[in-house]
């Protein structure tokens, strides 16, 4: 079995448009959440959202590459440019080596809405144009980026609800570990627009603390009242250890273990046993016990039931060692399909810059969350290894263990 390492990262997020900006935001505890009046006018129960400006790619990508790219593909393109540069992988390397792509994405709502709006108005499919089909499919990110970057390895999208980005890295890890690929571009992307979140808002799952947008996402806090949707894209370059050493690449961390499970219960209500199973499997795969983990980047989205169940699950496994825990969703909101990948980027930045980012707005614990060692402010510290949780609708769970490379 091959060892799998991270040799590059890139990020386009509501807390920064590159690694440097994001690292500073994490350290300073900066929120990327706003009140979006458009959503209120449309009839949203909550107008809160993470927000980042749309990239301008005219002059950077030619027209054919742009017309099929939805907004989350634009985010993913910029994150991938940064990640490949960070990994020092250039066109010459990609010509010699079959680089793959496994990206997490689980919707592309806006292009579907827009193209059907055109059809309803014009009553002629020929008026839809050539771009919407490529923008509309769930695999839009992997299909577009593979053409833009000329990837010739494995190429598909992983749709696993709010664990999509995490599963993408997990599957990428398994494929490289098997020796089937040397380098895979993994990640997760999430569109930001009202069309993609309207039906989610209908579930009463979003925070309505609209008077204080930056206090709305408060994972683990006693007074949390729901999540705040968000988006962007994060790319992680996974590479076999041998390939990284041969290239003289900087190794940012080792993917030590991937654990997964399915709750097999309710479509939207989380449980305790599923996350426990995923976390245990990730530790077992990493050959580590709970005491080896110095930091947990929790899934915690700021919903009453989800955070409580995750706190109980973490306490079951880590009750003795009590590593630091924070949910970066307190700053970013819930990046959904992107979150599992971005949280690997955030946590790897913390590991390499020696701090744990704060869980904003953790003012008062409740009975379950009081059991955790939650970082309510930035904590300078050494992280030897961290565990990142991502859970999604349908009871899909993913846990990744990343550690510093030890030769």
């Amino acid at each position, binding site marked *: 079995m091959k060892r799998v390492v991270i040799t590059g990262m890139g990020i386009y997020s509501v807390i920064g448009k590159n690694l440097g900006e994001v690292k500073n935001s994490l350290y300073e505890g900066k929120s990327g959440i706003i009140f979006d009046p458009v959503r209120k006018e449309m009839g949203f129960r909550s107008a809160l959202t993470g927000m980042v400006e749309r990239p301008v790619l005219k002059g950077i990508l*030619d*027209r*054919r590459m742009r*017309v099929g790219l939805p907004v989350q593909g634009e985010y993913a393109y910029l994150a991938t440019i940064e990640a490949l540069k960070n990994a020092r992988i250039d066109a010459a390397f990609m010509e010699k080596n079959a680089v793959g792509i496994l990206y997490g994405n689980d919707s592309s709502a806006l292009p579907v809405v827009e193209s059907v709006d055109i059809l309803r108005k014009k009553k*002629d499919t*020929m*008026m*839809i*144009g*050539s*771009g919407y089909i490529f923008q509309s499919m769930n695999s839009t990110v992997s299909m577009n980026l593979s053409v833009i970057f000329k990837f010739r390895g494995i190429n598909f999208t992983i749709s696993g609800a709010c664990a999509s980005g995490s599963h993408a890295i997990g599957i990428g890890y398994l494929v490289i570990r098997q020796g089937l690929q040397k380098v895979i571009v993994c990640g997760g992307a999430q569109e930001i627009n009202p069309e993609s979140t309207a039906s989610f808002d209908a579930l009463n799952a979003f925070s309505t603390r609209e008077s204080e947008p930056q206090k709305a996402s408060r994972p683990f806090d006693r007074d949390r009242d729901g999540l705040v949707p968000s988006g962007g894209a994060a790319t992680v370059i996974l590479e076999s250890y041998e390939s990284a050493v041969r290239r003289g690449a900087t190794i940012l961390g080792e993917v030590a273990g991937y654990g997964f499970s399915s709750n097999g219960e309710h479509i939207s209500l989380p449980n305790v046993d599923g996350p426990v199973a995923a976390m245990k499997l990730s530790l077992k795969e990493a050959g580590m016990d709970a005491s080896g983990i110095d930091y947990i980047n929790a899934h915690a989205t700021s919903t009453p039931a989800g955070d409580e169940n995750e706190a109980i699950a973490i306490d079951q496994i880590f009750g003795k060692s009590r590593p630091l825990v924070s949910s970066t969703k307190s700053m970013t909101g819930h990046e959904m399909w992107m979150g599992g990948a971005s949280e690997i980027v955030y946590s790897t930045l913390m590991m390499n810059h020696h701090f744990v980012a704060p869980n904003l707005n953790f003012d008062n614990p409740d009975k379950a969350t009081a059991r955790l060692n939650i970082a309510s402010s930035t904590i300078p510290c050494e992280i030897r290894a961290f565990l990142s949780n991502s859970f999604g609708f349908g009871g899909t769970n993913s846990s990744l263990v990343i550690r510093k490379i030890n030769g």
Partner: protein
Amino acid sequence: MQNEEIIKRINQLLIEEIEIDEVQISPAADLKKDLGIDSLDFVDLFVIIENNFGFKMKAEEMSDIKKLDDFYNYVIRRVHSN
């Protein structure tokens, strides 16, 4: 609309919407080989032409259109027949 105006408008749309390099535009230019207009670009031309000239192009009429001049003549004919 005069023929010259139609040709000027087509050129402008090819440059702005399909992002064809202005120096490539000439009546003798081959749409595929010289201008790089592929089958997907043709799909977008259907939309652009209807929005700007008010008629629907027909896919079966495209098979005879090879050069930009053929395309000018096709649009001119359709504009005048409307």
